[in-house]
């Protein structure tokens, strides 16, 4: 069975009736089925255009579940989203960016998903709808493990919600994303780091999110480091505050792409660089908002 409903309600009704494999951009769906027929019943959500696009809804930003990586890269967004936009430009190649959706990247739950670190560092939540009900789940609770999420079989991810940052007068927020792989793109990452920092008018860090991907089954927030950074002034010295102990929770693997020890060290270096880059931009008086 192949369903392609025109409305979200129709889609949710179909999901309530039977288990369906959800298909959006297909950039993970098809590679997982190379050389064998599609035997699952499919819910193709590509007609649900109401789920496409990015909107400022005051207390949060809504990234509709059909928003593609290219949409993100091209959108006119504040510097808060710079890291997510950097990630969008390095996901796969251009064709992948045009077809693949950010929400699909999260639902596929690969340890090396490019979307997870920047969205985690933004404190994003995933909006899940089932017929007649809706709930939101913090992204860190949504991805449970390699290819496992908190989405129920009858649920559809309808949006990613990013809380508004820098709501107090004079505060500003910005983010950065760095990725290490054999090449810059079209390869599976060795390590990824995303950092979001909010600073007060006096230059103190008032809120932050730091996340590392590809170094554990699920991308991880470095909460100890985040605590350490709070209240610090955002200067060039900030990078040195990141220490190996802050990455203790990571569990990188040894594989053909890289050894665990290298992943761990590289992740620390990327964290420091992301912080240094944000500090440099602050120092240069770039446009923060």
């Amino acid at each position, binding site marked *: 069975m192949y369903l392609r409903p025109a409305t979200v309600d129709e889609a949710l009704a179909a999901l309530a009736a039977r288990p369906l494999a959800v298909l959006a951009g297909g950039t993970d769906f098809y590679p997982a089925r*190379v*050389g*064998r*027929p599609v035997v699952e019943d499919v819910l193709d959500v590509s007609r649900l255009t109401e789920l496409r696009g990015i909107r400022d809804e005051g207390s949060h930003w809504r990234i509709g579940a059909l928003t593609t990586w290219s949409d993100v890269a091209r959108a006119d967004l504040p510097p808060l989203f710079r890291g997510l936009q950097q990630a969008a430009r390095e996901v796969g190649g251009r064709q992948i960016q045009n077809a693949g959706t950010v929400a699909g990247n999260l639902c596929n739950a690969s340890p090396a998903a490019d979307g997870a670190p920047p969205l985690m560092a933004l404190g994003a939540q995933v909006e899940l709808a089932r017929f007649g009900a809706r709930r939101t789940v913090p992204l860190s609770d949504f991805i449970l493990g390699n290819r496992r999420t908190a989405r129920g079989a009858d649920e559809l991810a309808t949006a990613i919600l990013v809380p508004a940052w820098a709501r107090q007068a004079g505060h500003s927020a910005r983010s950065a994303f760095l990725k*290490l792989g*054999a*090449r*810059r793109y*079209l*390869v*599976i990452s*060795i390590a990824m780091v995303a950092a979001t920092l909010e600073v007060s008018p006096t230059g103190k860090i008032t809120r932050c999110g730091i996340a590392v991907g590809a170094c554990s089954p699920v991308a991880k927030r470095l909460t100890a480091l985040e605590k350490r950074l709070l209240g610090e002034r955002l200067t060039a010295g900030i990078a040195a505050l990141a220490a*190996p102990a802050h990455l203790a929770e990571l569990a990188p693997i040894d594989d*053909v*792409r*890289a*050894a665990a020890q*290298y992943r761990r*060290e*590289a992740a620390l*270096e*990327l964290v420091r*660089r992301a912080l240094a880059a944000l500090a440099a931009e602050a120092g240069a008086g770039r446009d923060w908002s």
Partner: protein
Amino acid sequence: MTEPTRYGRAQGGARKEDERFLTGRGRYADDLAVPGAAHAAIVRSPHARARTAAIDVAAARAAPGVIGVFTGADLVAAGVKPLPFVPGFVGEDGRPARSPARYPLTPDVARFVGDPVAVVVAETAEAARDAAELVAVDYEPLDAVVDVRRALGPAAVLAEPDFGTNVAAFHAIGDAVRVDEAFASAAHVARIDLVNNRLVPNPIEPRVCVGEYDTASGRYVVRLPTQTAQSTRNSIAASLGVAPERVRVIVGDIGGGFGMKTFIHPEDALVAWLAKACGRPVKWRADRSESFLGDTHGRDQWVQAELALDRAGRFLALRVRLAANMGAYLAFIGPVVPLRAGVRVSTGGYDIPLFRFEGRAVLTNTAPVCAYRGAGRPEAIYAIERLVDVAARELGIDPVELRRRNLVPRSAMPYRNGVGETYDVGDFAAVLDRALAAADWSGFDARRAASRATGRLRGRGLAFYVEWTGGEMTERAVVEVHGDGRVVLLSGTQNMGQGLETSYAGIVAEALGIDPARVEVVQGDTDRVLGSGSVASRSLFVGGSAALAGGKDAIEKGRALAADALEAAPRDIEYAAGRFCIAGTDRAIGLFDLAARQPERRFLGEATVTFTMPSWPNGCHVCEVEIDPETGEVRVDRYSAVDDVGRRLNPAIVAGQVHGGIAQGIGQALLEACRYDADSGQLLTGTFQDYALPRADDLPAFALGAFEDEPASGNPLGTKGVGEVGAVAAPPAVVNAVVDALAEFGVKHLDMPVRAEDVWRIVAGGRAPR
């Protein structure tokens, strides 16, 4: 014997074939609509070595759309013979080299992951693939050996236990005693022990073949992209057990070959046999995963090399021991690559009087290894150029200076190298100087200081290479002059994207004094033209010289016909710019009018050329890398080269060939690694996600220069092979630069591909933990 000429030079950058390719009108084998064609899907072994005792094909045979299911046993019972490989090699025991018999489908033991064990033919490719999954093979897994060093070790698992050894072929060159004496008396000995990494060729067009059988004539037609139509035809015929004339091979456009699409692959013979067995044309097309598993791979050599030097830094002797991983079966010319082709340039551009070589071609349970752009020469040049850098560093001599002291001087040409090969011409010192100038070698210190200031390490490396090109030194050309205004050149070489149509059309047009647009080039049809195909960078200088001779012969043939037509003596007939004319008169006849008067409205010129002197392109490539010490990432920042490929007929084509080769060489140096699990023999890098091909943003702009002062002496065009030089020179240039950048950490060598992690380990090991 060089003639001053501008063949093709006037045509500028656009190639004759480009419009066809760029507008999607290339004619590739997969595009052929063959009426009534059925589709084959191959069942491949998931084990590195396993007995395939029982194969149950009942379910597959009963599947929808299935026409037939066949196993190796079916082929053997029908009289199919193993694929041939070149004779002439011996094992360590002096007996002829042995390979496990390679049938199009293996009948008894699968010997590598991807070895074909059965085939399903069905109405559609999808039906064939579905049914292939229903073929139940009862595999009995056996121990496997993957790594060439392990394969030579004590108590090694034997890839083919019946042989009692993993060494399939052994070849030695040089006087071991005299070389040993030179080493014993040397002031210094530099040594290197390295692995030349296994690569997957990966042309953009995967292998495809379509087999047809005509019951009435008893002839087979196989359409496929092959660089060597005649050899492939002969091998298909040998496997089918029929005379070569009963097989016709037809080649359309080829989307890149790189040496992988040479000679015979199992599927080529299989589709021919299936076409007869099924009474239908049968088509097989590899998908990318099959290409990774089932194409022949390249390189994969373990090389130990030693260089003896005297007190003045002069090279006295070179000793090379190599073990080449041949995979599970000897490919058609598998052992030729390490044991005969590469070794010719083991001493590179240097005057090294004494040379000793011992090479072993080793069987393992991996995909067969055969030619890949350069085929042996990249491995040889990589070894000598790394070794010279090691010697320079150990002796504290500048690497340029050490090379200068030892390069073969122009005055020594023709020069017989330590291997026994004769270089005809070359001015290596001048090429070196020009390359250093082009690279702004002297400006390096300032660039290194600038890198330092941003926390980066910078290194520079150079590589001087000499390459052997030619292989088969005979080629034939037929030039047909048609009454409708066309000239058709038939050549037994093969265009595969390297611009031969343009180059050949230019040569023939200039010989005849006509517009190149009138010249059509026909290749790759064994019923129309035979020849040795395009390998070993031979096409332009051997095939192009034949085309030139064929054009001249057409004039001579035309002269006799024109004499007849104009009622004059042939010696009084002059030819220029498309017209035969009686000397001193205005009585003339046009080339094409003359052809139109002939009974078949055409006349032919033909020529066969045979050369004795290979061409010896040489050059110097210079690379600068910048390294991020914290992550170990290596960026190629500058790359320049001066290549002596003799006279360039078409500079744009030459530049394109050098560009592509350098890109592949940088890929080998920094990105590409084909890895099998050492114990299970599973291919770990079976997709582009794990096998990193270089992309444009991995490469800098290349600064290329040409040296044309020493045209080749052995062919009338004065040209030398250019197709492979970039892939020969780039790996040592890049690795020498990386090692230079890391010199302060005391690193002597890093194996390819040099990954960020490898560099990072060097840097991290050389400083205090944080």
